[in-house]
């Protein structure tokens, strides 16, 4: 199983995501934003960071990277795609996922250990978890407040596409405490907190983030 990890200029968590993929049991494959092919990968991760400095709107420029055309096409055919943090923002800008991520409600960058509840275990990236399972993984971003219109929110909730929610106090003003969502098919997932930084207790608050990277081994591929 080959999982591509895309590096845009300004991507920061690419090495971490690759490490998590390898620890999870798949093979990480480095993809470059300007690549013209997906190197025969079975799934793709868009890691966190500040692609292109996030100067316009987070993810707004990366969405036009050559590799994204391939990702959008592959996602349409069912390839599992996971966007973490900045990657989630890129997926929203690419319209693979609805809504947008805006400035945290207190306007500060926030890095902390965050409890989230996994609320959908049928997606390509969450099947290793049990429904309602609570895990603690790092949350670290300046623009993590998930926003969408009422209609979209009702649709996401109605179709069970909220895949993870913050537990306790809302850390950033996200609607309905949303930490992550999926597309209708369940192959594309966006997640604000960072499971790749919670794969062992030596360097993370827990090893509970690993489930995202083992789930993919169970997913239908190609």
């Amino acid at each position, binding site marked *: 199983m080959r999982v591509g990890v895309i590096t845009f*200029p*300004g991507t*920061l*968590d690419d*090495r*971490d995501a690759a*490490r998590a993929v390898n620890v999870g049991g798949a093979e990480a494959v480095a993809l470059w934003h300007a690549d013209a092919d997906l190197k025969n990968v079975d799934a793709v991760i868009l890691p966190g*960071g*500040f692609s*292109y*400095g*996030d*100067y316009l709107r987070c993810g707004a420029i990366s969405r036009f990277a050559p590799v994204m055309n391939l990702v959008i096409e592959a996602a349409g055919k069912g390839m599992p795609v996971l966007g973490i943090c900045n990657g989630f923002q890129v997926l929203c800008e690419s319209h693979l996922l609805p809504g947008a991520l805006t400035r945290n409600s207190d306007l*500060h*960058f*926030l*890095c*902390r250990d965050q409890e989230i509840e996994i609320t959908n275990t049928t997606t390509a990236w969450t099947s290793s978890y049990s429904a309602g399972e609570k895990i603690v993984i*790092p949350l*670290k971003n*300046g623009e993590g407040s998930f926003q969408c219109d009422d209609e979209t929110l009702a649709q996401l909730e109605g179709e069970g596409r909220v895949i993870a929610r913050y537990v306790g106090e809302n850390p950033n003003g996200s609607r309905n405490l949303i930490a992550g969502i999926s597309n209708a098919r369940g192959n594309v997932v966006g997640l604000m907190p*960072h499971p*790749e*930084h919670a794969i062992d207790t*030596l*360097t*993370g608050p827990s090893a509970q983030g690993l489930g995202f990277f083992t789930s993919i081994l169970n997913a239908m591929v190609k």
Partner: protein
Amino acid sequence: MALDTVAIAETTPDSIQPFAQLGLKPDEYARIKEILGRRPTSSELAMYSVMWSEHCSYKSSKVHLKQFGDKAPKSDALLVGIGENAGVVDVGQGYAVTFKIESHNHPSFVEPYQGAATGVGGIVRDILTMGARPIAVMDPLRFGPADAPDTRRVLPGIVAGVGGYGNCLGLPNIGGEVIFDQTYAGNPLVNALCVGVMKHSDIKLAKAAGAGNLVVLYGAKTGGDGIGGVSVLASETFGAGGSTKRPSVQVGDPFVEKVLIECSLEIFAEDLVVGIQDLGGAGLSCATSELASGGSGGMKVALDKVPLRDPSLSPEEILMSESQERMCAIVEPEKLARFLEICAKWDVTVTAIGEVTDGDRLVITWNDEIIVNVPPRTVAHEGPVYNRPLAQPAYIDEVNAQVVQLPIPHTAAEIKATVLELAGTPNLADKSWVTSQYDKYVQGNTIQSQPDDSGMVRIDEKTHLGVAISTDANANWSYLNPYQGAKLALAEAARNIASAGARPLAVTNCLNFGSPEDPGVMWQFAESVRGLADGCLEMGLPVTGGNVSFYNQTGAVAILPTPVIGVLGVIDDVRTRTPMSFDVAGLDLYLLGDTYADLAGSEWAFMHGQRVGQSPTADLAREMRLIEVLLAGREEKIFSAAHDLSQGGLSAGLTEMVLRNSIGATIALADVGISLLSESPGRVIVAIEPSKTDALSTLAAKHHITLTKLGTTGGDSLTINDAVISLAELRTAHTATFPKLFG
């Protein structure tokens, strides 16, 4: 303004030049004329003025700093010493680590966000320039009173700037300090440390060797920001007009720097450079003159080829600009094509602006006319040296003769009130409000970060080799006795990393002081340097580099002497570090070290407005024995936890330990007031399984370290004699302060 060339300078010896406005003294200007045998051109004057500034030339500090070389202990670990962009030490397994602290104090007062941001950017480029991948940053910060209105302007901006830049670079921020004192109002201290790692063979130096090799400028385009930053901002005392100097503050672009890091590392990996220098303070003036004098001296640069953000810039401004995110490399002609290719991959602007030449002159042209023709060593290394007058200030005898008069708690109610007050005082309160704005997880190798005693990062995922770093200063002690203060800060930083089980290896420093033109300040500085040099010799730790920041004063009021000492250590297996706190009940708590009535310069004295008495005397032989106990205790798996005591003494140490994992403790103390408040150096709390009692006693006795039983872990309170403080109320006191102050 007409172009001033060497030819014109030769024929117009009597032109009036604005040397004083550029920060040069009349005798310095005379010396430049003597070196050149004519008046300098305006471009030469610009170069000399920035390179001979206090910030770049260390002209007031040099005579003292040479003690770090003269008294250097023998060390097999030192690979590159003082003088390069940053020192490099061997940490084993073929790895070399480079680390350094720099100040960005004045810019951060003028423009807090950009000042702090570019402080991080500058130190990161210094580390990158050595050939290393930057792996972590730390930021010791000092501000005016926590409740002062200006602190509410400066602190949030500086914290956001440190975070905004460091987070965007993908560098974990693993520690630092946040300290408040009246003397830092108007002069906040923003010190930034970076650490990087490389293989021994990858070390790069700033030298331009090999005639015909190309001088290649890459990174951001040059703009009008930060012109004269080192001479105007960093080397003068602020008057009332501080904020009007804003154009001298650089503006940072962390995205460009992140790309520059990755691009440079790819270039280094393919061995495409002969020498490399970053453009920081003094910009191109510094990079060209240092590279040239690091080699044989000859270099030719066509300044008109420098890519500009603002095409109206004059040659003088281009030479002085401190635009960020720029690097200058010396490249063999046959390697240029590959160099350009890598820059293109990363969309990095790159231009060959000159070449290394035979001879020993740095010649800079503007549209083929010669505007600079100087011996580069006279610009970069042979600036003025001052042996400034120094005199012990009158206050020293006066304050040393007094004795602190402080309330000492006795009853249960008094003990509880004291512990809670210390837990919540701004200097000791929980700093999460600050550190939660910094990414500590990126790169996935952070083992320890604030509030641990030291920051620790893994540098090899297979062997688990790691490094630990701590920065410390105790300005209250340095005020009472700068010689002892520097030694005590060194001891504390070393103890902080040894608490986790890492062996101290090397020292860096950031020496923050008032005006060197004040003999009293100069004496504080000289005493601090002497103390640090003596301390390093005694502890066997080489100084690998550092930074001096003078002129930290507003009007006649200087900051407290604040030598920030950074110690780096190595740990062979980060998995076996000793954690800072316990996570189970039923452990025994012991104090290693001796407690005396050391209240002078303590946090309790500060809280009562008293800065009098005599600082403790550093006993470095004992500190080294304590370090051996801490290292052996980790290796022999005796400790469940170890936590260094410093500001706030046992009261603060216990507070931090019980709150870390929400496991309480029951403590029995004789002479409870002094025991809780004393800040005697050389003390560490350790937690052990009761079965390890004999092993601990044997170990402490072997190294002649006093061992005192404190109590046991467990419960949901911190109980000291008959005072019961619930963890909930202790946590509230500890964590409420910063949100209340800063929103």
